[in-house]
């Protein structure tokens, strides 16, 4: 139970230089695609805003799962806490968007630090259940604190001030979307910096072989808890971003199923690759949007078949399609059998 998704990087045969170029192109590509979507789908900005915020949330899960190997179904605890804290602060005291993001990130990070320190000694199914228990308890607490959170009615009336005092939130959601996209791109840049840092490499080392890290003098658990807290900050910011851009926070933002959806989106896109999170989110929410318009059960049928097909035919997630293409385009590099080893 301890071995988690193999590193897709090791199975790709792409030439190192080409990969470096592609990796550095990733963030500008996301920014460009985001801006293109702004021009192409001006009527769907609400959906696009939600996708951008969700991508940041799935990215936070990638940090713990893809880079540390922590399988968790509790990421919504941090997302929801960030959303609620930012929402409560906005309704009662201050409504400056940047500050709300900071407050949400802080709250998410604190929850992650507290719960991570408690539960990260467990592994496998036990850890999975502990994360579920945490998210359920947070949900009960939010539900009980009706005076602050609105309970099952949700929290509404969040009315953010103009971003940086310059850009007013408009009726069409243009500001919301560009704001969310900017936060997502910034998040990607920070995440890339983190996973390339010595700390990020140490985390990857813990995922591969915790014993060896301990033998080298590192503390595997401290790395895991730190990364869990860092990811909690990302999730909290994503929650705050959702609260600010949509104006409401519901109980479902801190639910088991929202955690599970993040996991599905991430594995769909590909773990251990920052852009896997973005691609998975776009694919999942895009399909959801197209199909859910008719009947929620139709959506479940198609997404179910889609998920099964991905596992059976694309074990590395959608990202592995690109890897396969790149490997095909670079004949000089040694190609390994893809998928069979995972």
């Amino acid at each position, binding site marked *: *139970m301890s*071995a*988690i*998704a*193999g590193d897709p990087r090791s199975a790709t045969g792409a030439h190192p230089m080409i990969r470096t170029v592609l990796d550095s192109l990733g963030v500008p590509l996301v920014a460009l695609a985001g801006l293109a979507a702004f021009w192409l789908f001006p009527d769907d900005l609400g959906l696009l805003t939600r996708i951008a915020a969700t991508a940041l949330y799935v990215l936070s899960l990638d940090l713990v*799962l893809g880079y540390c190997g922590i*399988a968790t179904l509790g990421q919504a605890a941090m997302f929801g806490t960030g959303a609620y804290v930012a929402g409560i602060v906005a309704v009662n005291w201050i409504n400056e968007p940047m500050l709300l993001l900071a407050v949400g990130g802080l709250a998410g990070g604190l929850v992650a630090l507290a719960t991570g320190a408690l539960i990260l*000694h*467990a592994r*496998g*199914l*036990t850890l*999975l*259940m*502990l994360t*579920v*228990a*945490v998210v*359920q*308890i947070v949900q*009960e607490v939010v*539900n*009980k604190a009706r005076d602050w959170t609105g309970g099952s009615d949700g929290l509404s009336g969040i009315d953010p001030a103009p971003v940086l005092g310059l850009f007013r939130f408009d009726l069409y959601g243009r500001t919301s979307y560009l704001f969310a996209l900017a936060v997502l791109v910034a998040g990607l840049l920070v995440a890339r910096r983190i996973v390339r840092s010595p700390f990020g490499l140490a985390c990857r080392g813990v995922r591969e072989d915790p014993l060896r890290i301990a033998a080298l003098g590192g503390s595997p658990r401290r790395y895991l808890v730190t990364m869990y807290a860092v990811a909690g900050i990302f999730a909290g910011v994503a929650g705050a971003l959702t609260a600010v851009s949509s104006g409401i926070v519901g109980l479902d933002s801190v639910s*088991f*199923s929202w955690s*599970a959806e993040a*996991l*599905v989106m991430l*594995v*769909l896109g590909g*773990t251990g690759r920052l852009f896997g999170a973005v691609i998975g989110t776009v694919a999942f929410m895009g399909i959801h949007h197209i199909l859910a318009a008719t009947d929620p*059960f*139709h959506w*479940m*049928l198609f*997404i*179910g*078949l*889609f*998920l*099964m097909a*991905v*596992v*059976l035919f694309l*074990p590395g997630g959608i990202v592995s399609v690109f890897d396969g293409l790149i490997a095909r385009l670079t004949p000089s590099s040694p190609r390994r059998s893809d998928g069979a080893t*995972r």
Partner: protein
Amino acid sequence: METLFGIAVDGVAYGMILFIISVGLSVTLGLMRVVNLAHGAFAMVGGYVASYAAQGLGLPYPAAIAVAVVLTVVATLPMEKLLYRRIYGSANELQQVLLTIGLTFVIVAGINYIFGPTLKRVPLPDMLVGVVELGPKAIPAHRAFVIAVGAAILLGLWWLLERTDFGIRLRAAVDDPAMAAALGIRTERLYAATFAIGTGLAALGGVLGAELLPLEPYYAIRYIVLFLAVVAVGGAGSIFGSAAAALALGIVDTAGKYLIPNFGEFFFYAALILILFRWPHGFFHGRAA
């Protein structure tokens, strides 16, 4: 006193339902190392089939149960061959989670398509509607029946595992699959048989528990966390662990709902955290099934 008695009866009955459904999941998880999130969907299928057999076809209760169990097993065995065999023992549990969540979604959509989104009931026979006198106290007959069936299954599984050739092979395969295969135990067949027993029990639990875990299309997603919790607390692969965990969690949950009703599931998950703290690998980890 009255409350305490009610908690005991309802808690044990609820725990027995959890046990009947979860024990199959525990053994498949312990033996095949598959995180089978579709297990709850199998229980749901059993419940729906029984509901249709009883209400639509007018079959008597025992026949409806039998039809539900047999049909569920027949329907899921091809899945074992086509899907599960590919992910047994896979080091990549995320792929297992994804595949079985996908399967769950498909089953949920299928159940809704066939039976519609409304709540379904499995009508109880007259014998199970009344109460059973136990000295000065009386317990609802359905609860007594569930507790009796749960106890019978616990004993039956114990006999199957401890006293039969099949049980010896199964225990060997749980302890060390590679060694068991090397010794000539045909693990593939063993897996298929265990899978069939597991889904059969899930279907049975889905029918018997229809009063406590109501049948609706989202059943599969709503309750799978409960079943996984039982497995985590009991220790994967352990039958007595599953029974102990199911009873403990069932009683805690029922007590919480009786005494402090508006806290919902809080006590269930608080107990889960405390137990997993004390026994991170479950009650009976490391022993043979």
